[in-house]
């Protein structure tokens, strides 16, 4: 707090003039306290139709078993596990933003962490449903738990990555939920204290009686920091373990030590892309341009270039090592991936994940909302294909050519996947209506140090180095929410 000013060279995290603490609350709670607009209803209608499709498709799978999917004796894992890994990966960006960026004191996370964490939770829900429906007999899902049983207490196999995964995903989901909800308490209290009647009563229950006293805040910050500290290795471990589901097997194309870092980079890559897909729309529709600025968008794009390049290097390394290993089967798996019957999926993956994100090196593209939005979807398509390629092309031609097969999805496969996207968006749109999409308290922290108006005041006081000021003003050109004419005078 105190009188310390932030360096003028840092770009502002909150733009606009006349931003006060009250205005921050009003702006962020706008969608929560008012009736939804047309755009929300249109989105919600489509999303809930998707969610309905999901209910139908998953129920159909439960009733008929996984024979309803296009699996065959060679390809025993296909769209289900593709969808599972895809959703878990998407979920990772939320934890990365809320935990890793907190540890690195990246203040720009404050305006995007809340919705990114919500995205994490909804994505993991989508992922978890794949696991349960893939079990075939989902009513026996509790068999993955180490529970005493009537088979002479035959326990689960603790050497199996699938058991590790059960522990990893359930820990990840519950810890993310805890982190998210604890962070929400002060903001729910804000809604509570502004509401009246039944609404106040409901938010009162969910606010846990938050008061905002000194001790509450002090412990809150300690808890947030420790949660960030433990969530960081947690998020890395989760995707590492997901990758071990494949890497610890002996299937050519899966049995590689590069999988854990490669999967984690891919997860962050796709997660940030999904955050952009959601927030670019939300910022426009909810009018949050002053809080989610071009700086935020550019920063996320930079992370996408970095992780996209790591993923690209991993693809090439995998290919090189397949050749270098001298293992005939490994070599065939990769030749088959890139030139076999699924060549189109492989090249789709290569184009979407390795080539197209490189366009973000161009400042013009990185700062164009439309281009960024399209690229974010391209990345997500690419990451879906990555999992499809890893899973299906490694399986469909096994050791005996007589059992070689192709995988063709049935309408149930497609509906479960499309439906899970509907479910995700339904949950996200409901979230936007009932809870603040930006962490109010955390954004208020930035107002006096990192906002455009605070920097403007610094410039007007005249103690800043002229060159630095000029550089700062130049950096504001990319902001769509900054009035350039205010700076022309200076």
């Amino acid at each position, binding site marked *: 707090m105190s009188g310390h000013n932030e360096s003028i060279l840092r770009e502002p995290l909150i733009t606009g003039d006349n931003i006060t603490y009250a205005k921050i609350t009003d702006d962020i709670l706008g969608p929560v306290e008012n009736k939804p607009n047309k755009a929300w209803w249109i989105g919600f209608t489509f999303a809930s139709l998707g969610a309905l499709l999901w209910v139908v498709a998953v129920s159909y799978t439960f009733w008929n078993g996984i024979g309803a999917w296009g699996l065959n004796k060679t390809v025993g894992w296909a769209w289900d596990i593709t969808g599972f890994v895809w959703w878990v990966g998407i979920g990772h960006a939320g934890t990365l933003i809320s935990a890793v960026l907190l540890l690195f004191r990246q203040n720009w996370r404050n305006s995007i962490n809340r919705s990114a964490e919500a995205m994490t939770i909804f994505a993991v829900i989508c992922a978890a449903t794949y696991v349960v429906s893939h079990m075939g007999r989902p009513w026996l899902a509790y068999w993955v738990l180490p529970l005493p049983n009537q088979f002479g207490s*035959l326990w689960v*196999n603790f050497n199996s990555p699938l058991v590790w995964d059960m*522990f990893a995903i359930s820990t990840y989901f519950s810890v993310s939920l805890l982190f998210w909800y604890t962070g929400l308490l002060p903001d729910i209290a804000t809604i509570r204290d502004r509401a009246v009647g039944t609404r106040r009563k409901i938010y009162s229950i969910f606010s846990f009686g938050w*008061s905002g006293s*000194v001790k509450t*805040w002090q412990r809150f910050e300690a808890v947030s920091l420790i949660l960030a500290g433990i969530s960081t290795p947690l998020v890395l471990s989760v995707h590492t373990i997901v990758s071990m589901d494949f890497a610890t097997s002996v299937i050519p194309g899966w049995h590689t030590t590069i999988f854990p870092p490669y999967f984690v980079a891919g997860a962050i890559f796709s997660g940030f892309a999904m955050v952009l897909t959601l927030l670019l729309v939300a910022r426009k529709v909810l009018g949050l341009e002053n809080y989610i600025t071009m700086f935020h968008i550019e920063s996320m794009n930079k992370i996408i270039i970095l992780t996209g390049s790591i993923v690209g290097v991993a693809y090439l390394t995998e290919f090189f090592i397949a050749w270098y290993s001298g293992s005939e089967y490994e070599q065939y798996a990769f030749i088959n991936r890139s030139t076999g019957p699924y060549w189109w999926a492989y090249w789709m993956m290569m184009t979407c994940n390795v080539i197209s994100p490189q366009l973000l090196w161009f400042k013009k593209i990185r700062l164009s909302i439309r281009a960024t939005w399209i690229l974010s979807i391209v990345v997500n398509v690419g990451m879906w294909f990555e999992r499809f390629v890893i899973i299906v092309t490694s399986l469909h031609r096994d050791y005996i050519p007589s059992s070689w097969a192709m995988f063709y999805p049935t309408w149930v496969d497609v509906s479960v996947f499309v439906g899970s996207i509907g479910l995700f968006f339904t949950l996200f749109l409901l979230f936007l209506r009932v809870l603040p999409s930006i962490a109010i308290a955390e954004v208020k922290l930035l107002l006096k140090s990192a906002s455009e108006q605070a920097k403007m005041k610094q410039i007007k006081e005249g103690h800043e180095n002229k060159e630095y000021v000029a550089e700062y003003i130049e950096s504001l050109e990319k902001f769509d929410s900054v009035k350039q004419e205010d700076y022309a005078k200076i």
Partner: protein
Amino acid sequence: MSDIKYILGSFGDPDEMMHGIDVLQENNISIHDVYTPMPIHGIEAKLGVKRSRIDIAAFCFGITGTCAAFALIYFCAVIDWRVNIGGKPSFALPDFIPIMFELTVLFCAFGMVLTYYASTHLFPGRAPRVMDLRATDDRFVIAVDAKENAEHTVIDELLKNAGALEVKYNERKYISYE
């Protein structure tokens, strides 16, 4: 004396509120608590609030998780029912590590957060103890116990001079009770 229980200095700016705390303390007026819409760094030192020991609790819960996971796996896989997997040893420590790690995080997170809720009296349905409804919105509120500090006019003046936008006199401790 009147029925006034608490005097609230409501500030619009955190720095002015910090100044208000200094001014009150210089005049030997004890502060009951401060309610703010966001965490204020450095306020604990001013008010003499001790460092939170929640990190110690977190560590203890975490280590409990590690031990619990090891004990569970060791019991299941080594003592109770050894499964012969290609003649490999049942006590395969590297394979135990992922679950030991996950349970460490799980126990640590839940133990710590539940400790936090318990020590701060946060639980679903608890009646919010709010002195000023704007303290979660745009006001930074210093609460002074009116019974302990008798000179109300002095407090009023000090708070206003420090920059308080409003000074309130609450006859009930918490205005949020039904």
